């Protein structure tokens, strides 16, 4: 009988068959993964029928009223696990832009469930004007297609402010926010190096240190022009682990902290002043917050404030204090202008 398959051909055939079978197995495994993931997702997200009303703190300001605001944000996120949320802001009597960014971040965090968010504005016309110009209501109505549900990486423009939510370092967005802030003050868009630098460092910190898991935490950055004071107010919020859970303290500091000789507020003060060494042991690291503080000291920015975990520090008054409530993340706030 004629030998149809020579030894070499047979070997090649076997190798080819093994390869194609492996490829088929990989294709099927990929298909199974996708199918299972699709099956695990409900076709229609469960809608909540109950709605809870939550009253906003009268002094709606993270930097001036941090304890009540943090408790309020936690309550929003807790309620959103099981029901829709109506944010009642009618009784608000003081409002600062950092809190608007904070509320947007809390709502976004809560909206990871299928909770429906709605709300009203302060009765005080001046405050409701601030809120409306900030674009806040466009975010919280939560109707189909509302941008906040899919706003990763997008920049929102408003008549009075600009907000953005991102998950990575994005200098284009930083520049956009800074130019918006400068334009609001001077009439023409322009650079402001210190603000650009702070935004960049804040994004990098979030990218490198703030993450709870493998994925980077989203961050929120907003600029609001306070026409009365002729100042542009920046807020940067990440809902990661916060400075004190991400910043690996040296042994000596850990010891001082453990013995209650130093609390987080005192550590924050040392961080501002550049007295906390970098524990990465890599030369040139640990300059972020000290350089931000230097910008404040040199009057290049104003009212520089950091809220992280259970401590808040303000460079304007050199006040550093512990909070009753702990914020999961870090908030940077500063102003530019007159």
């Amino acid at each position: 009988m004629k030998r149809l398959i020579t030894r070499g051909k047979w070997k090649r055939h076997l190798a080819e068959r093994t390869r194609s079978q492996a490829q088929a197995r990989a294709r099927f495994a990929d298909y199974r993964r996708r199918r299972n993931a699709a099956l695990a997702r409900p076709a229609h997200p469960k809608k909540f029928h109950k709605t809870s009303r939550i009253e906003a703190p009268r002094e709606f300001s993270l930097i001036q009223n941090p304890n009540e605001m943090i408790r309020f944000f936690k309550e929003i996120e807790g309620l959103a696990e099981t029901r829709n949320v109506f944010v009642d802001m009618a009784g608000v009597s003081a409002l600062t832009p950092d809190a608007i960014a904070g509320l947007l971040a809390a709502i976004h965090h809560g909206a990871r469930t299928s909770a429906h968010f709605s709300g009203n504005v302060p009765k005080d016309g001046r405050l409701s004007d601030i809120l409306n110009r900030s674009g806040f209501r466009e975010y919280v109505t939560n109707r189909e297609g509302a941008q906040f549900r899919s706003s990763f990486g997008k920049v929102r423009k408003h008549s009075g402010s600009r907000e953005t939510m991102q998950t990575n370092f994005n200098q284009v967005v930083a520049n956009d926010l800074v130019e918006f802030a400068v334009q609001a003050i001077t009439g023409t868009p322009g650079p402001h190096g210190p603000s650009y630098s702070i935004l960049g460092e804040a994004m990098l910190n979030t990218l490198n240190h703030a993450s709870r898991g493998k994925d980077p935490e989203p961050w929120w950055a907003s600029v609001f022009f306070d026409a009365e004071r002729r100042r542009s107010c920046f807020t940067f919020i990440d809902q990661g682990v916060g400075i004190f859970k991400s910043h690996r303290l040296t042994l000596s500091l850990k010891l001082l902290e453990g013995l209650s000789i130093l609390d987080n507020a005192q550590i924050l003060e040392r961080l501002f002043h550049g007295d906390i060494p970098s524990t990465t042991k890599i030369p040139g690291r640990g300059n972020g917050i000290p350089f931000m503080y230097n910008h404040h000291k040199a009057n290049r920015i104003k009212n520089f404030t950091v809220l992280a975990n259970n401590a808040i520090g303000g460079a304007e008054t050199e006040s550093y204090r512990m909070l009753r409530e702990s914020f999961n993340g870090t908030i940077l706030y500063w102003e530019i202008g007159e």
Partner: protein
Amino acid sequence: MTTQSLELNVAAEFTRTPGPRKRSEGEYSGEEFLSLLLRPRFIAALEAGVSLRVNLDCAAGYPTSFLEEAFGGLAREFGSEKVAANIELSCDDEPYLVEDIKKFIREAKTTR
């Protein structure tokens, strides 16, 4: 006419919007600036026996990490004294940057 220095204009030759420290963190990083422009130009200046004049104007701003990685990185490679002696910095937009960068060069090998 002889040239006393080589020029490097960050905004014109690299980017108006400097980025993070490392390439892995985003575009236009300090690491990229160091490897693509700063180091080659510094070596060229050394070979020509002139100083390197770095112009930092017309940029949106400079994240601290970007500057440290670029100029601190150069000093870690060539030594702080050599870099300080052969580099001139100019920035009319943000004059304080010159002092900041000199600090990064001086403390390039220092762990804070």
